[in-house]
Every structure is written in structure tokens, then in C-alpha cells.
């Protein structure tokens, strides 16, 4: 703490040029008081709690490389999807919110399929067993590709730590949005509409 600098002065007996030295102590005390007050102000302003900020350094940057196979064995490369909007959803069967948002994703995929420049929905298997995911999709529907990520390269490439997360990549391959909570179909549709219209996305 800043107490370090204070006390040398007061230990000496008043010297001959005491005037100059005696004035130093109040300034040191003042400095300590200022630092203390500043710290308290900062602490009051601090926002606590888990920081699930949807901010990412990748916003506005080219999307990371996604080159892998789907769980059905087909090759997939995000670069070949240039020219259309892509929505990536990181999914695990063991994650409650992911399972809960699945019907919404179904709805979203259907609504986008009906549009001319509809977005493509792609799932990424997040730290899960591929067989379990296949079984889940077979039972609950979902005709969109689900990508293998056994080595975690896609997850690390995007900086994803928890599922579910949903990312939006525009036709030029640039990351435009990141949602870190459960999504609804309406939300996604609205977000896409805004992005396509040119207004910056804020989720």
C-alpha cells in the first residue's frame, strides 16, 4: 500500500531546516488519501458478476478457418459458403440450454429456407460424442449440417468456451454477430434482417 512512502519523515527529530521537511508529511498523507478515494470510486463503479460479454475481438474480422467434415462424413469448408449468410451454432447434447433452444433453431431453419437469400444454419459439435449428436438430430429433427470438431479447432478458432453460442458470418466471410445466450427464432430473424439492412448488429 502507499503507506510505504509516508513515515520516513516523522521519524526524524526536527532538523535545522525543519520548515522544508515538515511540510512534506501532509502532502504524503494527501497523496495516500487521494489514491484511497480513487480506489473506492473505481470499486463502486465496478460491475461484478460473470462476464458473459458478447463482445469478441473477432467482430468485423474475417471468420476463422472452418475446414472439417460433417457428422455424416461430408466435407465442409466455410470458405465455400461465401456469398451467403451463415449462422454457426455451437451445440452439445449435455447442455440444457442447447437442448431447449433446438426447437427454435428448427423454426429458424424453416423460415430461412423459405427466403431467397436465406441464411444457412450450421451446427458445430461442442465437446460431445458424435454418435450422441447424431442420435439427437435423428430424434428431434434438424436437416442442417452438423460439423465434427473432435480436436476443438473450430471452438478454439472462434474463442468459444461454453455452449450454446451462435455466430453470424456475412457473405464476405466476416464475423458480424455473437450471441452467448439461448436464442429464439424471432431473435435470429430480426438480427439477420438488421444486419442485411446495414445497421450494425448489437446483441
Amino acid at each position, binding site marked *: 500500500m502507499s503507506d*510505504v*512512502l509516508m513515515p*520516513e519523515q516523522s*521519524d*526524524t*527529530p526536527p*532538523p535545522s531546516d525543519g520548515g522544508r521537511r515538515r511540510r512534506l508529511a501532509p502532502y504524503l498523507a494527501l497523496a495516500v488519501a487521494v489514491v484511497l478515494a480513487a480506489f473506492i470510486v473505481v470499486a463502486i463503479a465496478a460491475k461484478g458478476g460473470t*462476464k458473459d460479454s458478447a*463482445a*469478441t*475481438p*473477432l467482430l468485423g*474480422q474475417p471468420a*476463422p478457418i472452418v475446414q472439417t467434415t460433417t457428422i455424416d462424413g461430408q466435407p465442409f469448408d466455410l470458405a465455400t459458403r461465401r456469398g451467403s449468410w451463415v449462422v454457426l451454432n455451437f451445440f452439445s447434447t449435455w447442455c440444457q440450454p442447447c437442448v431447449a433452444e433446438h426447437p427454435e433453431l428448427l423454426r429458424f431453419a424453416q423460415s430461412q429456407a423459405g427466403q431467397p437469400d436465406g441464411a444457412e444454419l450450421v451446427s458445430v459439435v461442442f*465437446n460431445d460424442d458424435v454418435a450422441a449428436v447424431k442420435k439427437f438430430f435423428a430424434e428431434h429433427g434438424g436437416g442442417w449440417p452438423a460439423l465434427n470438431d473432435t*480436436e*476443438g*479447432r473450430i*471452438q*478454439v*478458432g*472462434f*474463442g468459444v*468456451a*461454453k455452449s450454446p453460442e451462435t455466430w453470424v458470418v456475412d457473405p464476405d466471410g466476416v464475423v458480424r454477430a455473437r450471441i452467448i445466450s439461448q436464442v429464439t427464432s424471432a431473435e435470429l430473424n430480426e438480427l439477420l434482417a438488421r444486419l442485411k439492412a446495414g445497421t450494425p448488429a448489437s446483441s
Partner: protein
Amino acid sequence: MSRHAYKGWPAWIGLGVIAVVALVVGVSQSGGASTPSERIDAIARTIKCPVCPGESVYESRNSVAVNVKNEIAREVRAGRTDDEIRSTLAARFGDSILLVPRASGVDSLVWVLPVVVLVLGVVGLGLAFRRWRLDTASAGAPSAADEALVERAMRDHGDGCR
């Protein structure tokens, strides 16, 4: 206080030489360039596990941490430097994934401030001691009466030294 001649300067210099030699030998025993796996571990120790609070990617067994560590391994094998790897990870996960703050910008304050405090403190202590020594010196040489007093005390009561 007993005075032994063997504890004089020559013995101390000898001790110092042995100590320095031992240290030099010890430090050089760790070898030069670290193996790739040591490099990976070293970098992993400075990357925070994104999911589990308080652990680095080196310590955590969480699947996300393992994936990040594998990515570090891939980058090390691809020949990137430590700083490049750290920057890449920060570019994806955000600055908060780095356990060691950068040495530039506002972040460097956390490195610089302690050094500043150290320097100020040492300078302050040095000035204080100098002032005290000057004060004592300015107290003047002992007078003849003082000397006589001390002689009498030493004669009467013996050497107070142990």
C-alpha cells in the same frame, strides 16, 4: 563476542566464490533451448482456462482447456513464436485469456508501478539515512570531558563486550 581469525575476509571471499560457481553450474544444468513440449507447457501456464476460474490451461483438465492446449501445441510445431501464439489466442478469446498482462499500454502499469515504488522507496530510505548520518556527524566531536567519562567507566566496570 569471540573473534576467530578464520572468519575473516579470505574465508568469506572463498565462500563467495564457491557459491557463485555452484550457482553458475546449477543454472547451466538446465540446458539451453527448451524442448517443444516444455515450450508448450510454458505457454500453457500463461493462458487462462476460459471456463474454470483460477486455473491455467496447463493445469485444467476441462475439455475446453485441453483443446486450447492442443492448439498451442499445433502452433508451436508450426514454428510460431510464443508472443505470436499468445496474440492469436487473445485475438479470439479476448485479452482476459492472458494470465500475464502485456508489457505495453495500460496493461504495463501492473509491471511498472511496483518497480517505481521500489525505486522511490530505496531512494527515500537512502536519503533518510544520509540525512541521519549528517545529523549525527554535525553533532560535533566528543569533548575531553566525554572521553574522561568513558575511560572511567571502562576502567571501573570492565569491557562490556561479549
